[in-house]
């Protein structure tokens, strides 16, 4: 699985969880760029990503992400 595929899959998860088909993610996207992405929906997104890839993030990993790119790096490392 390459980075572009993961980005597309994560984007689909975002669209599904946040109920917004117009969301377009890039490596630089942050919560400020996606209206419905806040501290509450963040945890739902994490749970959905963990489930989709059968992985488990640590608290330290989740809290250190600055943008979608860093989240993707973390998924690809797992």
């Amino acid at each position, binding site marked *: 699985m390459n980075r572009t595929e993961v980005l597309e899959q994560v984007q689909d998860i975002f669209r599904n969880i946040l*109920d917004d088909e117009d969301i377009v993610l890039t490596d630089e996207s942050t919560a400020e760029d996606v209206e419905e992405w806040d*501290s509450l*929906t963040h945890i739902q997104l*994490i749970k959905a990503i963990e489930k989709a890839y059968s992985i488990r993030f640590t*608290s330290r990993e989740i*809290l*250190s992400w600055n943008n979608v790119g860093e989240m993707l790096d973390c998924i690809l490392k797992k």
Partner: protein
Amino acid sequence: MEINSTHFLLFFIVVFLIYYLPLKNHAKGQNLWLLLCSYYAFGVVEWRMLPLLIGVTGFYFFLGIAIARNNGKDERKASLLTTFGTLTGVGVLVYFKYLNFLIDAFTEMFLSLGLQVGSHTLGIIMPVGISFFTFKLISYIIEVHRGHMPPCQDMVAFATYVAFFPTLLSGPIDRPKPFLQQLSHNRTFTYPSEHNQVVDGIRQTLWGLFKKVVIADSLVTFVDLGWNKTGESTQWALALVALTYPIQLYMDFSGYSDMAIGVSKMLGIQVAKNFNYPFFAQNMADYWRRWHISLTSWLTDYVFMPLNIMFRDWGNMGMILACIINMVVVGVWHGANWTFVLFGLYHGLLFIPLILNGSFTSKKKVKTEGYLPSIRHVGKMLMTYLLVAIGLVIFRADNIISLGHFVSTLLMGNPYMEYESLEVSQFPKTTFFLAVLLLIAEWIAMHKKKEFALQLSEEWKAWGRYSVYMLLVLLYLLKVGGSHEFIYAQF
């Protein structure tokens, strides 16, 4: 030295002139000047605590560098240092703010178990602004540890972030990264210019002064009488006291915040936002996104999020638990009193129905309607206001006994009342009318996406804008003289 005092005005004129005249091309000089002025302002209020402020600033400055050195190399050490720094900050706060309360609570607990213990509360002086600057320091090391910012290498800039005088005593609680970025370049004052920060700052300060001096300080007498003479007040008067207090507190604290933000803007620095029209919230979650934002967002990032991540496999129960703990921390942050614990618990419990019916994590945030809200939305806003007012009855009470007395008199009246000190007719109607006008102005400002209601747009003719400013100044001058301390100065 309160921000609305003459002493502060004279002090600020000197700060401003030196900041923008001889130092205008020197970022470091401006920072050092701000730092010296901040220490002076702090020293005027509580000079004995100045060594503590300087000491903790130095400690966290070097701790930040040590954490960054270990980040990515020795993760365990970086985490240990961050935990140590966090516990030190919390320890300082507990020692100065909560130790006497904890000694009393444990003594009472032992006595209730039949164990005789001596009670020796300590004569600890609480440093002003401690709840605010410890939170700034903790925020700094966590941000460095999370890799969200590099450690600050400029000690003067760092100390200025911690002690910045407009926000030192009562917030807003600034985050290190955006604040320190602004100190990296010099601040200049050019007039006229289209979006002049200094002019906007003067406007916001005037708006804050109006809220505080004209409205909050006029409502305080009625509200205080209801609390000081509860047994001599009619039920309807107490109901009005309870319903008026949210407006008094909002005008007081948001008025202070407007002044702190306005004064900072005059120095070319944008500090954190504290309020976003909270009385137009349509549920309690929405309310907490709009009230004391710099505190609630701090706690969301450093308390609620880590808890929510930790409890993420427990479904709704995990989120409820994280919410309740977070809200109790919000309550206890205000001070060492069981009323604040109860206040936090009350708000935590109010989140349960929102979590269970899904509106807490609603995919679509609460949207504000057009200029005229529907009856349904008005109903939701009024219900939210009522829930806020009930919570603030707990918040306003001096202690649990006073709370019980107030609530029982409100619900059942006082059959033994000999003398009536407070009745509905004493309600300050003119001030209330002004407060309603102000809230209408805020409603319009919210729809125009203005930061505060006095940001009159260029659509207004100059004579119209200046007439409004002069009217506010006039109302302020008519009221000035009987000012009361800011409510949040005690926290």
